[in-house]
């Protein structure tokens, strides 16, 4: 294809990518480097239905309007927001490293900082849920592939259900089920003979519930991709393996898995990216006390009485960088395979 034709062909996509991906990212980066103007405060008298009048502080709106008109973005803060306690907490970590009573103390004090607390759960969720969901999806795909044709339709439909449900609704359903009077919660109490057992109470059980939810909701995607892949496994190779006396396990190990490896890379790529943005189950499970994620931090900055756009911007940029770091090994692998094939 001539370069000109190729360029004309991808131009609409390029424009869309600049408009909807590049520009918003630039805007977020710029936003993250700014903070609000210093507020000019005045004391005024404030009268309310109960309690009469008190002197309270107010923002001098006229003076602020002038400041904003001069510099609409606010004050330039550079990387200040990135380094403060809400994000990388450079000073706090320095203080912890300089003065501590041992490794346990360092870990628990760093974990107490909001960003590192959120990052810990985000990474654990990524690296536990992704392989388990892929494994479970692969097993379901193998199972569905062997059942009679008549049953396949309904089984596939039911296997895909967790993916079809909106994540927030899905997490709420599971959350209701694990309540002490829900079907799972009540049965667990009987099973462990412990009337005070509560999945929502302890941090460990909350994490386990969230991870379980993650695997449950992610497995269908792996399943459907692997199932499609299974249809392309060359039948003659399988047959010759059978003639050579390979068991079912050996056929899977030496024929199916190598054949599906490129697909697995693709699934891992998508799911790592997805899981790094974990958010809905934390809200659905009301798990904020025990588990937060980077996305939840952004949500927290952008809701409530006080909106912190700079802080949300900084967390967003850090999330983008995190996704890039996570994907780099997979991308390098794909690139090498691609080059290998070309040569």
């Amino acid at each position, binding site marked *: 294809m001539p370069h000109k034709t190729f360029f004309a062909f991808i131009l609409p996509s390029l424009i869309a990518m600049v408009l909807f991906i590049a520009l918003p990212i630039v805007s977020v980066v710029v936003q993250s480097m700014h*903070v*609000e*103007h*210093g*507020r000019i*405060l005045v*004391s*005024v*008298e*404030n*009268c*309310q*239905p*109960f*309690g009469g*009048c008190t002197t*309270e*502080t*107010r*923002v001098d*709106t*006229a003076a*602020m*309007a002038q400041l904003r008109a001069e510099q609409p973005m*606010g*004050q330039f*803060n550079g990387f200040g*927001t990135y380094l*403060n*306690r*809400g994000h990388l907490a450079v000073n*706090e970590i320095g203080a912890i490293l300089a003065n501590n009573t041992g490794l346990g103390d360092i870990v628990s004090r760093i974990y*107490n900082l*909001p960003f590192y607390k959120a990052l810990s759960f985000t990474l654990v969720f990524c690296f536990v849920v992704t392989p388990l969901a892929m494994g479970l999806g692969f097993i379901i795909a193998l199972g569905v592939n062997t059942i009679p044709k008549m049953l396949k339709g309904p089984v596939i439909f039911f296997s895909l259900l967790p993916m079809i449900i909106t994540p927030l609704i899905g997490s709420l359903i599971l959350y209701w089920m694990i*309540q*002490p009077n829900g079907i799972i919660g009540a049965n667990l109490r009987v099973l462990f003979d412990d009337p*005070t057992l*509560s999945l*929502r*109470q302890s*941090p460990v059980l909350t994490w386990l519930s969230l991870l379980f939810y993650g695997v449950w909701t992610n497995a269908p995607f792996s399943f459907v991709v692997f199932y499609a892949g299974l249809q392309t496994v060359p039948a003659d190779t399988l047959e010759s393996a059978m003639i050579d006396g390979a068991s079912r396990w050996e056929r899977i190990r030496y024929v199916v898995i190598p054949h599906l490896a490129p697909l697995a890379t693709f699934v891992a790529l998508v799911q790592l990216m997805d899981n790094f943005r974990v958010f809905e189950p934390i809200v659905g499970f*009301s798990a*904020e*006390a*025990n588990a937060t994620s980077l996305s939840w931090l952004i949500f*927290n900055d*952008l*809701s*409530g*009485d*006080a*909106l*912190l756009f*700079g*802080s949300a911007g900084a967390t967003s940029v850090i999330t983008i960088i995190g996704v890039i770091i996570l994907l780099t090994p997979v991308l390098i692998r794909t690139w090498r395979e691609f080059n290998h094939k070309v040569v």
Partner: protein
Amino acid sequence: MKLLLKTTVSLGVLCLTAGAAFAECGIEGTGSVRILSNDFEALRLVNTTAAECAGGSVTVTSNATAEHKNIQVPALTINPAEYSVAVVANNSIVPLLNDDLIRPLDDLIAQYGQDLQPNQLIKIDGKTMAIAFMGNAQHLFYRKDILDQAGIAEPKTYEDILAAAEKIKADGLMQYPLAASDKPGWDLAAEFVNTYLGTGGEFFATGSAELDIDNANGLKTLETMKALTAYMDPDYLTFDANGIQAEYKAGNVAMMVQWGSLAGDMLNGEGAADGVVENTVLAAAPTVGGGSVPAVALWWDGFTIAKNISDEDAAASFQAMVHGISPDMVAANPTVATWLVAGYEPGPAAVGVIATANAGARAYPMQPYMGLLHTALSVELAEFMAGSESAEQALADVKAAYDTAAKEGGYL
């Protein structure tokens, strides 16, 4: 004869005014009324009553949504504003004041506000910025039958409540006699603000945004909040106001500090277990640590008029809202809320709020940086409440989180 004449005249006047009220509630001129409010029964009622003013050249639309706080600032910043009326409370008026998005109402009150009471006017710096129409506060709900069985009188302080809970548990009447909306987020922070107000302390150093809760009052507040959890369902960190309402209705709870705005729902008793509603008593919120004021914040709900709209729309909006909160509407719906309107006769559901207000409870603070503190509390108290952190550490974390946010917000 003279009496008869008087009666006839006044009856005639009454008919005339009533007639005028029905005919588009007498709004002169044209205008578009667009109301943004929170979403609960009392506010929906105000919105629908204001909508009676629609007709002729006046249009009335309303949007009642729990997301109103997130919408209001951007919606009122554009010109003309998306909404002409924003229904607010102590805390949600602050962002509107900070950005200068609402207009002073004194001229409109002079022209159309004859029915309003002086205590409905929220005056800031001498100018009326909002018209309050209902009050709200958390207060004590308790089960008289359970307390009687344990031989305990009505608790007046948190210390009484703890002693009562211990007795009820020891007598085997209930396993978890207490409940509180301790869910991390807005609810948990509100519990802290409530209790702290009861200690008599101030949140900030006078006249500045410097946080001042890292003291004996702050420790007492946390200590009380934690002590209560010993008598709560182990899942207390996941209960919000609706959650504890359900637990109480199910008959699992003997005492809780709950919103006055949910008292109507409680007395109405839908879905409640036998014996819960008839034994429920509403009382003033408890005091704490020997303090004299109830350990809760008083709230008001009121309406404001947007700045970025035409004067015609502002006049029409003001009149429609005054109609929405009219004494007639209140007389027809006395149980829905604790109204701050002329002629309101408090019903049984308002007893607790009024007792709390009369006992001298303090208003929820309106400083421009209070929202930042509320957010910091909502995130940083969870670990302490879960028992994995000391009270001192929790207060230090709140201070650190608040300072970070206040620096970014330009207050420090």
